[in-house]
C-alpha cells in the first residue's frame, strides 16, 4: 500500500517560475524523502528530511516537514526545462527502518 499522497497530480509551469508540490502521509515516520524520475528512467534521490527537522535546503530545492499535519512540501525555485520529471515523496516508518512507501507522484512540466 502507498502511504504518501502527492498533490497536485500534475503541474505545468513556465521556465523560471517556482514549482510547489505537497505530500501527505498517514502514519508516523522516521524520515521523509523526495525522489525525481525522468520519463523511462530510474528514481534519483533528491533530499531527506528527518522527523525532528522542519526545513531543509539543497541547491534550488526546499523541503518542509510538518509532522503535526503529517505533510511535507517540495519547492523548486527558478525552474528549468531539465526539471521536467515526476516527483515522488517516500516515507520511512518509525518502526521499520528500510521500507520506503512511495506516493503516486506529481508530474511537473516546465515549458521553455
Amino acid at each position, binding site marked *: 500500500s*502507498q502511504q*504518501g499522497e502527492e498533490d497536485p497530480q500534475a503541474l505545468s509551469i513556465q521556465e523560471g517560475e517556482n514549482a510547489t508540490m505537497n505530500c501527505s502521509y498517514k502514519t508516523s515516520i*522516521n*524520515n521523509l*524523502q523526495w*525522489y525525481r524520475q525522468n520519463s523511462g*528512467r*530510474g*528514481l*534519483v*534521490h533528491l533530499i*531527506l528530511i528527518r522527523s525532528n527537522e522542519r526545513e531543509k535546503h539543497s541547491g534550488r530545492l526546499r523541503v518542509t516537514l510538518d509532522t503535526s499535519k503529517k505533510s511535507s512540501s517540495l519547492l523548486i525555485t527558478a525552474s528549468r526545462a531539465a526539471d521536467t520529471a515526476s516527483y*515522488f515523496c*517516500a516515507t*520511512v516508518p518509525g518502526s*521499520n*527502518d*528500510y*521500507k*520506503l*512507501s*512511495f*506516493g*503516486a*507522484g506529481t508530474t511537473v512540466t516546465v515549458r521553455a
Partner: protein
Amino acid sequence: GAGVSQTPSNKVTEKGKYVELRCDPISGHTALYWYRQSLGQGPEFLIYFQGTGAADDSGLPNDRFFAVRPEGSVSTLKIQRTERGDSAVYLCASSLSSTTGELFFGEGSRLTVL
C-alpha cells in the same frame, strides 16, 4: 559498476512463461530492494535483502514471485507462470546499510506479458 545495473532493460514474454530479472547493486551496498512500478503510479515495495537473506518479503504479491541473493551481491527476481497483470517496471535499489538513508535505484526492467 558505478551504479545499480538491471538486466534486461526490456522483456516481452507470453502469458504462462517464466521470467528472471537481474540486479547488480552498487559494490559494498549490503541492503537491496525490489520495487514494482505500474504506469502512472509510485513504486510498490516487493522485497528487501540484508546481505544474503530476505529480511522482508511481505510485498511479494503471491507465490509466483520469488527472489534470491545467494552471495549477498547480485539478486534475481523470478516470476513463474507470468500473467498479464504482472506487466510493470521492476525497479531494484541498493543502499549502504539498512539504516534510513537514501536508496540508489537502477533504471528498471520493463516487463510486458502478452
